[in-house]
């Protein structure tokens, strides 16, 4: 494919393979995307047109403000009455911005989205599309539907949570082209468009993965199992360069990125990380007692960290691999202390869902920190199996026994060896 003309020209679609065109838009001035992403090189919104012998399919659209670019490019290679199928691999507004207008201009076109995209579509279209024109990309038996374009066929690969519930990839069978949506994409704007022509975008590719895909690592691994066997000739993502030179290298890079950053040294043992901050040593003694208790349970590896120094990044990596997390904080003016919140507000990049969580701490007046931390842990979708331990000022010997028991019981939960119990709802507080 190296002989194809390269470089985006205003008002013109760009051929990325015979009969397949890029219809996207360049946004070189973008410096911050979705609030959380820095975009030093801007971004592109990639949409594609696939021409078959019996019809045309459009795959994805662009952010609404760039609709004119999209429609002008589309009109340079196809007329609206030729469009039989519109596929949205992902419905976030940067891909669905021109969808309502496209469906209006091509009234015969049918829309294909993943089953999980239906609730999002309602928000995007606000009822503005005949339901008869909307189809899911899985049939009633759970098999991929096939869009027949005559001499070409589109199949669908369900890749949920990369990075929304609705995300899917579209596979152009005869040509080995994968329209991958946000997967293998990045925010990098370069009008030369192809990966073998643009500037060095490796940083953007990895950065995009770390910020967008990493929280869904388990889903990335499942998706890679589906994508790796494909005879890929080109990957056409929804942002950034089109990957025509060695596309499989980018799939391999995803596999590397999705592999745990830190090798698990605990083997089959369950890992418990205890983080604490202590003003006068009381919460620290509670943390130590909790560790002693947890370590009495075989098969649990405990680590203790005083995070008063405020480091966050290294602990995020540790937390991603851990099974259980405990946070100890004194209560200052009715709240947990800032280093604890800094860490607990930095976990959106990793998946902590269903890990076990616990809170404890010493207090002088009222001890709200423990409940607030527990609420945050539940908000992050951790399981909090035990009510936290809160002690007034310095722990007595008996109170330290309570902390040790707390650590032991938490470790039993980690190992799945907690005692079966029958409770009345009134005991739950």
């Amino acid at each position, binding site marked *: 494919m190296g002989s194809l003309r390269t470089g985006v020209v205003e008002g013109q679609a760009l051929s990325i393979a015979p009969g397949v065109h890029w219809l996207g838009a360049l946004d070189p001035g973008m410096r911050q995307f979705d609030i959380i992403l820095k975009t030093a090189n801007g971004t592109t919104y990639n949409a594609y047109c696939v021409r078959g012998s019996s019809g045309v399919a459009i795959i994805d659209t662009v952010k609404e403000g760039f609709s004119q670019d999209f429609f002008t490019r589309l009109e340079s290679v196809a007329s609206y009455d030729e469009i039989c199928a519109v596929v949205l691999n992902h419905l976030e507004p940067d891909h669905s911005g021109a969808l309502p207008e496209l469906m209006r201009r091509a009234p015969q076109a049918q829309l294909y989205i993943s*089953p*999980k995209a*239906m*609730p999002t579509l309602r928000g995007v279209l606000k009822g503005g599309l005949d339901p008869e024109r909307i189809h899911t990309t*899985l049939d009633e038996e*759970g098999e991929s539907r096939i869009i027949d374009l005559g001499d070409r066929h589109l199949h669908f690969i369900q890749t949920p949570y990369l990075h929304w*519930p609705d995300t899917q990839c579209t596979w152009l069978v005869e040509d080995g082209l994968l329209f991958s949506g946000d997967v293998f994409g990045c925010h990098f704007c370069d009008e030369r468009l192809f990966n073998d022509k643009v500037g060095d975008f490796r940083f953007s590719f990895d950065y995009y993965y770390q910020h967008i895909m990493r929280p869904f690592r388990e889903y990335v691994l499942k998706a890679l199992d589906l994508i790796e066997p494909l005879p890929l000739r080109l990957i056409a993502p929804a942002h950034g360069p089109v990957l025509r030179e060695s596309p499989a290298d980018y799939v391999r890079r995803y596999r590397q990125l999705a592999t745990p950053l830190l090798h698990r040294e605990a083997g089959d043992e369950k890992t418990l990380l205890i983080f604490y901050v202590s003003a006068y040593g009381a919460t620290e003694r509670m943390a130590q007692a909790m560790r002693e208790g947890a370590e009495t349970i075989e098969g649990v590896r405990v680590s203790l960290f005083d995070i008063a120094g405020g480091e966050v990044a290294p602990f995020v990596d540790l937390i991603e691999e851990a099974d259980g997390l405990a946070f100890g904080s004194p209560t200052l003016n009715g709240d947990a202390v800032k280093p604890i919140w800094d860490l607990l507000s930095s976990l959106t990049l990793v998946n902590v*869902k*269903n890990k*076990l969580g616990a809170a404890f701490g010493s207090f002088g007046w009222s001890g709200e920190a423990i409940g607030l931390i527990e609420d945050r842990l*539940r908000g992050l*979708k951790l*399981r*909090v*199996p*035990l009510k936290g331990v809160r002690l007034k000022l310095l722990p007595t010997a008996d109170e330290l026994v309570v902390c040790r028991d707390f650590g032991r019981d938490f470790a039993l*939960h980690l190992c799945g060896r*907690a*005692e*079966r*119990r*029958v*409770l*009345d*709802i009134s005991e*739950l*507080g």
Partner: protein
Amino acid sequence: MPKANVTFEDIGITVTVPAGTRLIEVSEKVGAGIIYGCREGECGSCQMRIVSGGENLASPSVLEDKVLKENMAGRATRLACQAQVLGGDIVVRPA
């Protein structure tokens, strides 16, 4: 008031609750592994598998039914934020 016994199989805890209780009111408090998102029956995050006693839950509403279908949920799956216990014994676990 009639009571029901809800067992969260993943953590081995049974809770006695009054009839009319929604699963969401109990599962987080006991640390069960059912995960919540919107808590309003829309996002489908809190799907749970009914191991036994499904007949002891109120039938799904039209809204719950729609969300379950959109998530391609199996017949024994319910949303914990919506499912209300009527009585008897119910055993659930995360879907």
